[in-house]
């Protein structure tokens, strides 16, 4: 924690800090009863860090990941992503941020079932407004990066679980995002395939990619260089570990 910036409201994060949350809070109104899922999380993640976020269910880790992924907006505190304050942006601006800054990898892969691997990887580029030729080239390159250069025209149901997750990773990387945000990326995979996927993450991290991963499995979290644990909507522990 010695590397962290002393941040106060009104400050701007140092350029090296890619994710900064300051007293980030999220409360839900559940039929009159207010549930405080996050109660003031202050977290700083630097460029090229590999961070696992852990915690029991109900600890707020999904809420935190939705906020970091700009899928949701906080009810209190600040969130800075890549030098931009995103906690008070509107829907359309958040959509642009998701498109440019964040690469999602989901537990259930979330590929479009009727589209080919290539087309699935092209999707973020479509929303980025790229032309068809450029899109195809970049998507093909991303698929080759995850070792699926020979599976481009396959549909998800023609691919194994591990291959599907690789397509999802290619899709997450194709826009060259600031952070790769993975939500239980091995939750639907057997242990051998999980190992392969974790190797892909490790390789990406070594190439300079910032990776944030939400998981509840300790042996998956063990691959990360830093583990943040949440409990009751607050950061409980924040430890660096040997990779």
């Amino acid at each position: 924690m010695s590397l962290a910036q002393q941040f106060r409201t009104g400050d701007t994060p140092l350029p090296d800090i890619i994710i900064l949350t300051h007293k980030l809070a999220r409360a839900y109104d559940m039929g009159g009863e207010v549930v405080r899922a996050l109660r003031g999380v202050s977290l700083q993640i630097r460029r090229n860090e590999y961070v696992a976020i852990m915690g029991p269910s109900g600890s707020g880790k999904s809420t935190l990941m939705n906020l970091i992924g700009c899928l949701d907006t906080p009810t209190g505190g600040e969130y800075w992503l890549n030098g931009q304050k995103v906690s008070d942006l509107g829907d359309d601006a958040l959509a642009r941020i998701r498109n440019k800054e964040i690469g999602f990898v989901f537990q259930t892969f979330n590929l479009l079932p009727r589209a080919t691997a290539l087309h699935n990887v092209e999707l973020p580029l479509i929303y980025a407004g790229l032309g068809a030729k450029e899109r195809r080239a970049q998507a093909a390159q991303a698929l080759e990066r995850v070792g699926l250069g020979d599976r481009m025209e396959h549909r998800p149901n023609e691919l194994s679980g591990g291959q599907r997750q690789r397509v999802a990773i290619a899709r997450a990387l194709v826009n060259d995002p600031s952070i790769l945000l993975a939500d239980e990326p091995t939750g639907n995979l057997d242990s051998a395939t999980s190992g392969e996927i974790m190797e892909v993450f490790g390789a990406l991290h070594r190439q300079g990619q910032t990776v944030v991963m939400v998981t509840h499995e300790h042996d998956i979290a063990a691959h990360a260089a830093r583990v943040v644990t949440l409990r009751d909507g607050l950061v409980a522990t924040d430890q660096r570990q040997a990779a």
Partner: protein
Amino acid sequence: MTQLFEGIGIALGSLRGNKARAALTILGIAIGVMVVMIIASMISGINRSVQHTFESIAPRTFLVWRWFQAGVNISDGSEETSPWRRNPAISGEEADRIALLPSVRYVTRRDESSARVEFGDLALESVNISGLSSQWVEVNGGDVYPGRTFTRLEDLANSRVVVINKKLEAQLFRGRDPIGHTIKIAGVPFEVIGVYTPAPSLFSGASPPFAGIPHGAFEKYVPFWKGWMKLAIAPVEDVPQQQAIDEVTALLRSMRSLKPAQENTFSIITQDKLLDTWQQVTGVFFLVMIALSSIGLMVGGVGVVAIMMISVTERTREIGVRKALGATKREILWQFLVEAATLTLVGGAIGMLVGGTVAWVLSKATPIPAYVPIWSIVVALAASVLTGIGFGLYPANRAARLDPVEALRYE
């Protein structure tokens, strides 16, 4: 643009994926468009040949009838619903006096009936018989060949000569030359002097057997419903049609002793008026057609709402993923609108193909000269796309408003 193509691709993909459901959805649209196409092609076809018919008649000729009314008239026999009873029949004396007017070149009379026609052992019942003045071919258009029509002299002499049409020729003579033979009309012998071919026109291919004889002979020998003689009047070459109409009107009014405030007790019909009337009638048809097809499109539209709602619900997760990958509300809205419009466009195209085929078959197999105008294709396709967009708006908006977090969590 990219998203338009992508949207169309997705729409076609989901059409392929849910063939039965999509087919049911677009059925309403297809039927609506099909009905429009068939009726539009029939009306356009008939319109074209009506116009053609009017053009084939000497354009300056006008008609004097006892009664003429646009549209359909329903009478229950009472005075109020039978206004023609107030008008006296056009008399022969009136016709003769009109013929003497300086602006009038000639007047042709016409009375119609039907009678039994015999030739040798052959007999045909209910053949249309017309009593006509000698210039009737010039008024009606068409041609007499082989042979000739009757002369003015034969007309005045009530000669028993007859001009028959191709259909009657075929049925009575079966390929033999009819000229010079004698046929019996209502039991009275007439000599066949010519074969009449009408100007190519509406239903000309299906014109029933017809025989034309001099008007005097008609009155003398053929039983008919008296009081409905019609006159066709051709003005003199250099006289404007309106001048002739004014003279005829003034003459008839004075002969009938009408006071200035009284309305005419006869009808004068010009071709412009006939065309107007025709267009009024077809206008009503068009309105009915538009109403019918709107109902078809509405029903189809409700189907579109239903299938799109199902589609949005089924693909909640996909919507979540797209939003996570950077799709804005507008892009999601657009995607589903394009999908709905593609659905209805396919329905419209199918309806158009079926309707066009039916119209083509109609024009080949029946005398109805169906013809598909280009504008009706454009209108049909535009209407189906608009239906898709209009009815797709609600489901598309629902998709666009989905919360990405909840959409991604949806099972």
